[in-house]
């Protein structure tokens, strides 16, 4: 038998074929400041696989027309592709029907939609919306806007010094005034994975509607909205390797049916006259105007890409990276991790003694290492740790252990420059 020289086995001890996965993402293969890019900012927005880029290109070049409007072939093809993406989304989230999936611009719009169309008509002065202190601003401000207008308020449940939710304190804050619970599934700033099933159970026992912000969960965790039992769940396309400007809102059928439209316009009506108009059934009721057709198709391609690899395998790989990063960073006494909740996702927020996060970001960038520096649109979470900013390395399925080494070496370079 002929002996075959195999390429060196990637150093990452996971079942993923990392070389093949990395080859799927053309954006990873480039030099930044003359150094190979080490992209550790996927929590802000993930790189795109060829499958998504091709889906976008095909949708524009071969089957582009408006949806739900034409009898001609291209319009029918575009409609089929658009609605197929909705069905893929329903499968990805475990919804019982594609009719429970609303295309939105992203998780931010989904939360605004639920705040305006679902909560606002049900809210009176003195009512409360319960969130956690680790929320992204997008899961705080839309509720505040509705609450301020109606004399209600947004109440944060506390987190501990590891960045984990204090579940007892959360439950204590569930009261007769609580009209909505909205909680992040995976924290973008701290990596904390919230016990969302438990949270939903506590709320449902009291008849309180629930929304889960899954923007950061979708690229890392298998989601089953029916098992969770939540009323609403949202994901953002660009965080799960899809296009920007597109996302999905899952709404339980009876909730959506009981909601007024979010915006008025074409496509969301049953009939229009100057005496009054009537609304189309969900999900069309919530999709006024020509939607982001091609974005939706791209999102469908992204969800299929992730599903084909398997979220269990992705999660295992990312946990390996997380543990390796924690181990390597623990060798640098100047580095303090922010967010150390048990079972956390592969988001590593950190501060370096004597060096501001913004300077870390600049120095790492010069080495080709892309991290985010700042408050990560989660100011209350960062302020909980007495900080204004952290540096954040966030990992995705395409990252490698040698990229963790690149991160640690670049931090070492920063320590040298600053002499700390």
């Amino acid at each position, binding site marked *: 038998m002929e002996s075959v020289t195999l390429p060196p086995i990637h150093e990452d001890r996971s079942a993923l074929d990392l070389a093949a996965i990395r080859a799927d993402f053309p954006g990873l293969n480039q030099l930044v400041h003359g150094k190979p890019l080490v992209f550790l900012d996927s929590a802000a927005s993930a790189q795109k696989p060829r499958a998504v880029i091709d889906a976008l290109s095909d949708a524009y070049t071969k089957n582009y027309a408006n949806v739900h409007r034409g009898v001609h072939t291209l319009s029918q093809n575009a409609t089929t592709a658009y609605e197929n993406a909705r069905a893929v989304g329903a499968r990805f989230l475990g919804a019982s029907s594609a009719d429970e999936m609303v295309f939105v611009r992203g998780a931010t719009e989904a939360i605004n939609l639920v705040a305006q169309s679902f909560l606002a008509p049900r809210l009176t002065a003195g009512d409360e919306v319960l969130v956690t202190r680790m929320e992204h601003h997008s899961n705080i401000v839309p509720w505040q806007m509705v609450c301020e207008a109606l004399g209600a308020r947004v109440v944060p449940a506390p987190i501990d010094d590891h960045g984990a939710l204090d579940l007892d304190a959360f439950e204590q804050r569930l009261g007769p005034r609580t009209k909505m619970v909205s909680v992040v599934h995976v924290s973008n700033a701290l990596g904390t994975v919230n016990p969302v099933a438990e949270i939903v159970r506590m709320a449902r026992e009291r008849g309180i509607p629930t929304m889960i912000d899954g923007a950061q969960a979708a690229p890392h965790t298998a989601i089953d909205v029916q098992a969770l039992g939540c009323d609403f769940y949202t994901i953002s396309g660009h965080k799960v390797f899809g296009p920007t400007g597109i996302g999905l809102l899952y709404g339980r059928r009876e909730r959506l049916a009981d909601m007024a439209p979010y915006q008025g316009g074409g496509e969301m009506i049953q009939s229009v006259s100057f005496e009054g108009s009537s609304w189309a059934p969900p999900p069309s009721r919530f999709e006024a105007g020509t939607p982001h057709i091609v974005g939706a198709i791209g999102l469908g391609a992204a969800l299929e890409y992730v599903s084909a690899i398997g979220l269990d395998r992705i999660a295992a790989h990312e946990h390996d990276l997380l543990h390796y990063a924690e181990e390597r960073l623990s060798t640098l006494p100047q580095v303090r991790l922010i967010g150390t909740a048990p079972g956390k996702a592969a988001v590593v927020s950190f501060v370096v003694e*004597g060096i*501001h996060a*913004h300077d870390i970001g600049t120095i790492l960038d010069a080495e080709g290492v892309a991290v985010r520096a700042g408050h990560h649109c989660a100011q209350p979470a960062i302020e909980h740790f007495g900080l*204004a900013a952290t540096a954040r390395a966030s990992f995705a399925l395409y990252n490698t252990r040698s990229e963790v080494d690149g991160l640690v070496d670049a931090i070492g370079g920063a320590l040298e*420059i600053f002499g700390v």
Partner: protein
Amino acid sequence: MSDLRELYQQVILDHYRSPRNCGALDDATSHADGHNPLCGDRVRVQLRVSAGTIEAARFEGAGCAISTASASLMTEAVKGKTVAEARAIFASFRSLLMGGEPAEPPASLGKLEVLGGVREFPVRVKCATLAWHTLEAALGASGDGASASAPDTTANSAPVTTE
């Protein structure tokens, strides 16, 4: 790496670790707050201005090496200067960082020249100018510079932002 060494010169690191004129100014005649929403940095600049001259300038706030060093060097640079001279220094400083037309008349930058390396890092220019925009707002609020143009001046009310 050479750009990085140019950015993080010893003078800058020294002013970052041991900022000058840092802390409250008890007998301030004006102040303004600045905020860089990009990184969350906040700075307060307090001035004692008398007969058109900046007798004392101090700053408070936590920030990155660039913004802290710039604030520290700024307080040294404007102390004892007239309001008009301080504004001229800012104009020259801004053209050092951002290029374009040299300020007219050109003011001597002295030690501020060490911040010239920021020019190679456009996203960091706001860090270097935060304290200066805040100074400009405080000057606008001092009553000695009512004619000055400071488009984002919101001294003593909403913080100045560098966005």
